[in-house]
C-alpha cells in the first residue's frame, strides 16, 4: 500500500512537471546589466531607461515574433565581480539568451567570457575597449557584439580633432592604469597623436579613487602642454579639472564618452572637449523622435522631460539592434540571431550601423564642447 502510494505520488509529480513545462507561456527574456550603483550610477540609470524604452515600444507593437519581451534588470556596479555574479544569475537561473550590457569595459570583459561560453548573445551598449569582442588569440568572440565605436576609433577621433582643429602640438596624458577603459583610450590617443606628428610631453598615472591631483597637475604645469587628455569618468574629471583651474592651468582638457553625464561639473571643466556617441542637437529624424519618446516616458523631479544622454541613446540602439536581429532571424535561436546581427544595416540614433568582422559597428562620432556652463555640439566625425 505504502509503495503504491509513493509510486502514484512520483508519477503525479512527473506529470505535473511535464504538463507545466509544456504550458509555459512563450516570451522572450532579455537581461539588462547596468551599473545602478557604484562609481557611475548615472550611466546605469540612463542605460536601463534607454533599453526599457525600446522594449516598451516593441511590446506596444506586439513584441517580437509574437512573443512578449520580459526584462530582467541587474545591478552590475561597473565592477567585474558583481557583473559576473549578475551574468551567472541571469544565464543560469533566469535562462536568458540575450544580455544588454555592461556599460563599463572592465565589467563587460569578464561577462563576455561567460556569455560566449554559454552561447548567450551579449550586446554591450557602451563598452569601448577592443578586448570585449576579441578573445585572447585575437579572434572574434562569436556571440558578443557592441553598439558603440571602440576606443582606438575614439582615441583617433580625439587625436585628430586635437591636432587639426585645436592645433595642439604637445599633449599631456593622464590615465588610470586600473581601468581598462581609460587605459585603452589613453593608449589609442597617444598612438594616433604621435602618428599625426604631435608629441606627448608627459604621461602620468593615478588610481580611480584618488582625490588629490596636485602632484600630477604640478607636472602638467611644468610641461606646458597645448592639451591635457583625461579620458576618465565624470567623477574624476570633476576633481582634476577643478584642481587644475586652482593651479592656474589654462590648457584645455579633452576626454572621451566617460565625461558624458548630468553630474559633470561644467564650471570646472569649462573649455574642455570630449568625443561622444550622439548629441541631442543632432537634427536627424531618428534622434528627434527618440528625444520625443524618451521625454514623454521619463520626467525628472520637477516634471520636465528628461533629455537622454549618450548612454540612453546607445542602450536604445543596442536593444533595437538586438530585437531587429531576432525578428530578422525568425526564431529565438542565438546562432541565427548572431548571423542576422552580422549582416544587419540599421539606422540608429547614434548613426548608421553595420558590423565589421570583429563585431564592432562602423559608425561616426560627435565632438562636444563644454562652454559657458553648458555642453554644446561641436562637430560630427565620420570613420
Amino acid at each position, binding site marked *: 500500500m505504502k509503495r503504491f502510494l509513493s509510486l502514484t505520488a512520483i508519477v503525479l509529480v512527473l506529470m505535473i512537471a511535464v504538463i507545466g513545462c509544456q504550458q509555459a507561456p512563450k516570451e522572450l527574456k532579455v537581461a539588462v546589466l547596468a551599473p545602478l550603483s557604484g*562609481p557611475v550610477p548615472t550611466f546605469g540609470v540612463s542605460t536601463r531607461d534607454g533599453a526599457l524604452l525600446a522594449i516598451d515600444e516593441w511590446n506596444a507593437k506586439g513584441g517580437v515574433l509574437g512573443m512578449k519581451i520580459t526584462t530582467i534588470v541587474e545591478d552590475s556596479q561597473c565592477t567585474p565581480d558583481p557583473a559576473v555574479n549578475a551574468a551567472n544569475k541571469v544565464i543560469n537561473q533566469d535562462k536568458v539568451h540575450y544580455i544588454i550590457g555592461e556599460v563599463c569595459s572592465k565589467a563587460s570583459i569578464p561577462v563576455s567570457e561567460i556569455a560566449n561560453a554559454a552561447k548567450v548573445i551579449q550586446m554591450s551598449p557602451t563598452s569601448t575597449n577592443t578586448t570585449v569582442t576579441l578573445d585572447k588569440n585575437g579572434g572574434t568572440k562569436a556571440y558578443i557584439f557592441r553598439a558603440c565605436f571602440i576606443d582606438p576609433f575614439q582615441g583617433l577621433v580625439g587625436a585628430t580633432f586635437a591636432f587639426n582643429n585645436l592645433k595642439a602640438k604637445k599633449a599631456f596624458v593622464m590615465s588610470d592604469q586600473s581601468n581598462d577603459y581609460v587605459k585603452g583610450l589613453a593608449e589609442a590617443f597617444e598612438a594616433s597623436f604621435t602618428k599625426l606628428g604631435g608629441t606627448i610631453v608627459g604621461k602620468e598615472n593615478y588610481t580611480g579613487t584618488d582625490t*588629490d591631483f*596636485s*602632484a600630477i597637475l*604640478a607636472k602638467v*604645469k611644468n610641461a606646458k602642454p597645448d592639451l591635457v587628455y583625461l579620458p576618465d569618468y565624470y567623477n574624476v574629471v570633476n576633481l582634476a579639472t*577643478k584642481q587644475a583651474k586652482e593651479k592656474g592651468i589654462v590648457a584645455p582638457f579633452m576626454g572621451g564618452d566617460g565625461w558624458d553625464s548630468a*553630474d559633470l561639473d561644467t564650471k570646472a571643466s569649462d573649455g574642455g572637449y570630449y568625443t561622444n556617441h550622439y548629441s541631442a542637437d543632432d537634427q536627424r529624424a531618428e534622434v528627434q523622435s527618440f528625444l520625443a519618446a524618451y521625454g514623454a516616458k521619463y520626467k525628472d523631479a520637477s516634471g520636465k522631460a528628461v533629455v537622454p544622454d549618450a548612454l540612453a541613446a546607445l542602450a536604445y540602439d543596442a536593444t533595437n539592434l538586438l530585437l531587429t536581429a531576432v525578428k530578422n532571424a525568425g526564431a529565438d535561436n542565438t546562432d541565427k540571431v548572431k548571423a542576422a546581427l552580422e549582416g544587419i544595416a540599421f539606422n540608429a540614433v547614434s548613426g548608421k550601423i553595420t558590423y565589421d568582422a570583429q563585431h564592432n559597428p562602423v559608425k561616426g562620432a560627435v565632438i562636444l564642447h563644454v562652454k559657458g556652463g553648458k555642453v554644446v555640439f561641436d562637430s560630427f566625425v565620420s570613420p
Partner: protein
Amino acid sequence: MPDKSNLPAAAVTAPRKNRYPLAWVGNGFLIILAVLAAYILVSNLFRNPIVFLQNILDGLKLGFVYALIALGYTMVYGIVKLINFAHGDIFMVGAFTSFFAVSQFNLHKWPQMLMPGFPAGLSIIIGSLTVILLSMLVCTLLGVTIERVAYKPLRDAPRIAALITAIGVSFFLEFFGALQFVFSPRFIPYKSPFDTTAWYIQSGIHPIVSGQASPDNTISFSNIFLIILVASVLVQIFLQFLVRRTKIGIAMRATSFDKPTARLMGINVDRVISFTFAIGSGFAGLGGVLYAIAYASIWTQLGILPGLKAFVAAVLGGIGSLPGAFVGALIMGQAESLTMSYISTPMRDAVAFTILIVVLLVKPTGIFGEPAGEKA
C-alpha cells in the same frame, strides 16, 4: 613585568640579546629604505626648490586634515583603549551633512535669505560657519550615539570584541549611507558653501584668475588651504587648553591613566568617555567639511582612506598622545605629498602604510608615546 598589553598589535622589538637569526636582513632593509628616501628628498630639493616647497604646502593641506581626524583616534584610544575604526566614517557623515545643508537648504546663505539687505560677503561667512557648526553638531551626536549603542555594552568584554564592533559600525555607516534613500552610492559633486579662490606668490601675492595661466615656478595656494591651516591649529590649541586647564580635561587624563581609580575618586567615567567621543567626532566632522570643500567629490566610502591614514598618523605620533597625533598627521601629509610628486601618485597609499609597518617595527609606541608604566 611591564604590562605590554596596551601597545598596538604586531611586533615589539626584541631585546638585543634575543635577536632572531637573520635580523640583520630586516634591519638592513629598513636602513636602505631610509637612505633611499633621504636621497630622493635631498636631490629633489636641490633640483627644484620651488616645486619642493609647493609639495610641502600641499602636504600641509593634507596633514592638517588628517590631524583633525587623528586626534579623535588618539583621544578615544587614550581613554578606552579602543581603536575606533568608525571615526573615518563620521568624517564622511560630516561632509555629507554640509552637502545637504548647502544644496537642499541653502544654509550657507541664510542671513541674506532672511534679511534681503544683508551684505553678501558677510552672509556667506556667517552661513558657512553655520554649515560647519551644523555638521560638527551632527557628527558629535552620531559619535555619542555610536558610543552608547555599540561600544558601551562591550566595555568589560575582551578588547578584540570592541575592535570588531568598531569595524562593523564603520561598514554599517558606509553601506547604509550608500542606500538610495540615504546618501545614494553615487560620487556626488560637492556644492561648496563658498567659492575657492587661489593665489600665487611671485614678489607679492597675486590672485589666480580663471582663464589666465599663472606664471611658472611660482607657489600657489588657495583660500581653503588657509582655512584648513587656521582651523586645525585653533583646534589643537583649544584641545591643549581643554586637557590641561579645565576640570573635564583633568577628568579625561585621570580616566585614561587609571579608570577604576578615577571612578573611585568620584569622576563620572561614563560622562567623560561620552564627552571624549563627542569632541573627537565633532572635529572629525569639521575635517570632513573642509576636506569636501578642498576635494569636491564625496561618496560614502570617502572616509576609509583618510581615516586609515589618520590612524597611522596617530600610531606614528604615539597613540594616546595629542601632540603626537598632530605631529604624526603632519608627517603623514608630507609623506603622501612628496611621494605623489617624486615617486608616483599610485604609490602614495603604499608609502602611507609602509610607514605604519616601519613604526611598529622600530618604535611601536610612536614618537611621543611612552611605554606603558607599571601598575602597582
